[in-house]
């Protein structure tokens, strides 16, 4: 038991810090900051979904907001019609997962190259964006839910305690839910990546042909990973809508997709912790930039991306673990060595 804990020191630390934050933040922060941090947790789940399929599965998904947006609209439409949030939350994961599986089937089983996967996913989110943008007017409604075109859908009910429609989650409850789901997603993905499925997925990223030569069906593994990523992005979309009680077409926008990629680039796409930190840091930065009028936020985000691609191409997390930590250790070692010599001198 202790050996297992020691071998996974990093994970244990993340878990302890995560739980501590879950308990401490609602006590320490005012309502506005708590709401803001809830949003960061939701976006971090979105970052994890892309980190899984891109950073580990090697699937270049340039239009990840398609699944985020689909989850968001699915929840909105379903919760307005059903009046209770349990089934809508499940639907908001299932529908994007099904879309990802269907799209993945055509992309991976046709063995199209990575760059076309990027183009197709980008196109998908643009199609969603334009279609949903064109749904203004009372003709476009699903049951009781008016899609509202570019005006979006207001007054969407918050999440409630499962099967109890009157027990709506207050901000603290919503924070605990989103923070908890972020932790669960993080650890579940870690566990998944340690299974044979996860290891084969990483191997596919490294060399798809070799994986097939070993007798694994790479197409099926990619399809499954893509569907899992779609479901997680849908979950993030659902939480996002339940958090803001509002959804509009920009959830499908290319800017939204690009942001997720920037989180990964900044944090380090081959890790899980990096994208979480990237999502939080960049979202915080975007909020801060938004409070001033001097420079456009997108310009600054673009500059940040450029700096990272040029100077820290693998992202912050790999740089810290692979470069900074060994460097710090190497600083300690000579000192320890001279200490030993001093000891010998005494003897």
């Amino acid at each position, binding site marked *: 038991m202790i050996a297992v804990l020691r071998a996974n020191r990093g994970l244990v630390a993340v878990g302890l810090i995560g739980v501590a934050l879950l308990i401490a933040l609602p006590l320490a922060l005012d309502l506005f900051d708590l709401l803001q941090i809830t949003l960061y947790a939701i976006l971090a789940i979105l970052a994890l979904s892309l980190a899984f399929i891109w950073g580990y599965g090697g699937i270049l998904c340039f239009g990840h907001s398609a699944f985020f947006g689909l989850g968001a609209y699915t929840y909105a439409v379903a919760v307005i019609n059903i009046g209770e949030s349990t089934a809508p939350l499940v639907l908001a994961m299932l529908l994007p997962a099904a879309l990802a599986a269907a799209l993945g089937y055509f992309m991976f089983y046709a063995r199209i190259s990575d760059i076309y996967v990027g183009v197709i996913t980008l196109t998908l989110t643009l199609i969603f964006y334009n279609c949903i943008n064109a749904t203004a007017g009372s003709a476009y409604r699903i049951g009781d839910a008016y899609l509202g075109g570019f005006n979006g859908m207001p007054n969407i009910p918050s999440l409630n305690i499962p099967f109890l429609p009157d027990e709506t989650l207050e901000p603290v409850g919503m924070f605990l839910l989103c923070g908890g789901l972020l932790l669960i997603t993080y650890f579940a993905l870690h566990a998944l990546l340690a299974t*044979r499925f996860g*290891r*084969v997925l*990483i*191997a596919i*990223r*490294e*060399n798809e*042909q*070799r*994986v*097939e*030569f*070993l*007798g*694994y*069906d*790479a197409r099926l593994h990619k399809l499954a990973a893509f569907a899992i990523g779609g479901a997680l992005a849908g979950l993030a979309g659902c939480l996002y809508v339940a958090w803001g009680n509002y959804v509009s077409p920009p959830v499908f926008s290319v800017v939204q997709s690009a942001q997720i990629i920037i989180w990964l680039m900044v944090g380090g796409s081959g890790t899980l912790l990096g994208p979480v930190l990237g999502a939080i840091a960049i979202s915080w930065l975007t909020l801060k930039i938004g409070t001033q009028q001097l420079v456009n936020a997108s310009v600054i985000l673009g500059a940040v991306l450029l700096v990272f691609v040029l100077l820290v191409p693998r992202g912050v997390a790999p740089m810290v673990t692979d470069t900074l930590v060994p460097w710090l250790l190497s600083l300690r070692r000579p000192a320890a060595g001279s200490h030993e010599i001093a000891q010998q001198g005494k003897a």
Partner: protein
Amino acid sequence: MSAPLIETRGLSKYFGGVQAVRNIDFSLAEGELRCLIGPNGAGKSTFFKLLTGQIKPTGGAVLFRGTDVANLQAHQIARLGIGIKTQVPSVFNGLTARQNLWVAAARHDRRKNADAAVETQIERFGLSRFADKPVGQLAHGQRQWVELALVLCGKPNLILLDEPAAGMTEEERVRTAEIIREINREHPLIVVEHDMSFIRTIARRITVFDRGSVLMEGDVDEVFGSQAVRDVYLGHQAAA
């Protein structure tokens, strides 16, 4: 004679108007070690890719224990028990040697057995010094061994090696020849190679390719003594 392990019947592959492989009948018995040789452009590599399903034939069939593999997917062919080592090492460069082998072993074995199978191959190939380094950082010859170990971890019924000694030092070649002979005690092998001295050290039977067809098939001494084979290698035929 027992049924062949793998055989081809009238196997052909055309690339546009180029007949890379023409009407080849080939068969390999269980337990055999066969070398395929021939000058550049003789069709060895195309034939190799046809055997492993990397390209589909224009005509004819490839039968592995009686199953036609020509229209199977690469992973289905692998599941029949055909292990492949490609010319340029095809490994997982970002993973360590140990992780590389584990992915191969886990295809058949549950966790504990897979770990054991990995350690067996690490020992056999003397990889322990660099087993936990990313394979991308290893020397070319070491990566070749990692790939061979990887193929063996997959417990194949037949192993196909495409130029296994390419890019190795003399010392590594000698060791590789030893390993190939040792592997052959348990596994049938087909080796594509054009380094004649290397072939001399491992081969028993040789199939000689020339211009898409089988020029001759025979024992080592027979093939090396043949005037036709010498002509092909020295280019006399083209001059004649």
